[in-house]
């Protein structure tokens, strides 16, 4: 592309009327896998269980004696773990079904959040590299998360969690074969 043709593109671009620009508001949003919520709630349950288990184990073991205060604190610790776990699980129960994503020709978008809704849009032109991530639990549930890195830095990694593996691979492929990748 030469300088002049570039300038023309930019120039003609400014001539477009507002109506012709693609609109984010009318995105058709796709939900992520339903398993994702189940997996998260399950995970929180397990963490809470393990923590309670450790506390209980310490409380009722017979190898050494605990200070009096710790014994008294035991019910509160358990209650605290259960309460925090409950709130956390409740959040995921309601928030995870509100994670959506959308693909357009030129960009990928994600909407998430329960009270604070966030819609982020990542132009594929600006993608530096793509990863499909699968933790052990993700593998067990047949899920994967798609991570898209731009020059915006670690803090702003675009991530769609809880995709089925096929869908994640498909999206990765879509981004990789996109003609803008490699052109920077």
């Amino acid at each position, binding site marked *: *592309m*030469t*300088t*002049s043709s*570039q*300038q023309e*593109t*930019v120039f003609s*671009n*400014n001539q*477009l009327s*507002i109506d012709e*620009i*693609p*609109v*984010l*508001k009318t995105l058709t949003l796709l939900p992520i896998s339903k398993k994702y919520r189940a997996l998260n709630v399950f995970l929180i349950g397990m963490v809470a269980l393990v923590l309670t288990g450790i506390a209980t184990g310490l409380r009722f073991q017979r190898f050494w004696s605990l200070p009096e205060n710790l014994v008294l604190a035991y019910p509160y610790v358990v209650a605290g773990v259960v309460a925090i776990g409950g709130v956390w699980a409740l959040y995921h129960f309601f928030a995870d079904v509100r994670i959506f994503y959308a693909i357009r020709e*030129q*960009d990928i978008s994600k909407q998430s*959040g329960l*009270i*604070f*809704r*966030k*819609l*982020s*849009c*990542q*132009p594929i*032109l*600006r993608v530096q590299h793509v990863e499909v991530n699968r933790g052990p639990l993700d593998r067990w549930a047949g899920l994967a998360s798609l991570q898209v890195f*731009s*020059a*915006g*830095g*670690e*803090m*702003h990694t*675009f991530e769609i969690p809880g995709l089925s593996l096929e869908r994640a691979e498909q999206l990765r492929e879509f981004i990789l074969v996109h003609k*803008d990748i490699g*052109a*920077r």
Partner: protein
Amino acid sequence: MTAPETSSNLASHSGRSHGLKDDASIQSQGSEAGLAEPKLNVETGGDWQRLSLISILYFTIRNITNAAQGLVYAIPAVAISFNIWDNLFSLEVLIGAAVLILSTSSSGVISYLMYKFRVHNQHVEIHHGVFQRRYTNLPLWRIQNVKIERPFYYRPFGYALVVLDTAGSGKEEAKIVAVPEAYAEALKKQVLYEKAQYDEDELEEPTGVNLSNGPGSSLPLRDTGVRAPDYTHANEEVLNRRSVKDIIIHGITNNRVWIILGVAAPFYDDVFGIVSKWLADKGLQLNQIVGEQTVAWWQFGLYAFVILMMIMALVALLSVGGALFTFYGYTLSRAGDRYIRRSGLLNKLEVSMRASRIQMITAKQDWLDKLLKRVNVYFEQNSTAGQQIQELMSPNKLIVPSVTEYEAFALSQEVMPGCDLRTQHYQTISKRFIRFWLLIAWTAPLLGVFIVGAVTAHVDIMIGAVTMFILVALLLTLRWWRWGIAFDTKYVYIRRGRIGVDYQCFEPYKAQQVIIKQSVFMKRKKLATIKFVLASGAVTVPFLPEEYVYQLADRVLFEVESTRRSWM
């Protein structure tokens, strides 16, 4: 890179720069010279080179500072186990010190012996490290930034330190520790040349272009700068100089104390000890004054005020010193498509930045700056995340300290033609911003304090809480009043600040990501927050009309996706 390729590039280049009158001829001359010359200059051949002997000094100083930094953490332990100050000149201490000094200075020699480099086949190769041998191989065209440093002890001998930076991470930095200054310059020229060639081959796109359209454009060099090896000093044009007066103003308006304080950090305890001892000698016992009611409260207040003033004056003085230390002899110049900043009192520091790499211009004006009508201008480049370098030294931010308002305008015009920060019509944010932050963050704690005051019947606490609340509300109001965004189809502008004002300006096509945030409550009021992620960092403008936010997001995304211009 083969010769035919290069020449075809040059041909296309001169074709493009056709309309550029007299500059074109200079450029092509420069490029022919560049084509023939630099390769001979910098290549050291297949043999490994040693540094010049002066580098022993550098290595020694570096090793000593490294050792000292490590030892700082050991000092408390040593001090506890062995009262070093009482036996300052005892045999053990002297032996210890001697061993330390000897080992570090001999380590300088060893480091020197273990360091070899060569510039061969367009690669910079370095073998270094004593215990952990490292081999660094940098192709010239991968190098993003070249910094030439001249520590003061190099200067009499005409040597320089070349720091080669790759885009990857901060760790992948290579230093050629001591080379003659002329060689350093030649190497830099060669690197920039290779880089420009490589970029052109790779991108097939003029990365250095900021559309300087319109007949009145005074910057014909910019469009052609990328592909022309015109990095000779003949083409360098100084854009801005800072006089000592400007730097003193900068020192007063901006707190640069840390430059001095950072250097002096190891001696804090001693200094405080000496000061309090001195005060005690003068018969002034702070805890006496506060503890006993021997002095009237207004007297005490006066003392405190005077001391505060003295400290402030001292701080200002230190700050001026710090500013002079870093910014003495400041020049900002343009060579081709690069901006080069040179400054420093003892160590001359040079930072250069490609014009196309600039993501954002920031003009910061604190309240004191406002009074003196000065502005700090920053050109922000992509930052390597998680790596916080001191902003003044950072190659990611090019600062032009304390320029006048007109100069700030001229500089922003220079980097982003047609950008006017002040005369924009800014879309201000909603008043709900004030209410939101008051309610969410401040009401509960201050109400708590107020209730505590009421319960314990302390009127002063109650008054304090109320004043605090009013103060916070005022500051939030100021913040609300300042915060705004504007878009003039070419640039996005952001204005923010509380008492001072900051302006930011970026080209929409450089956005990496666009984020719209909206809470349930904001949705009800048809408000939304917009956030642009740029390679230099993110900018957020909260509580804007929903309609405006969506339109702006669509426009910016369209700009990115339809123009397909590189952000680098």
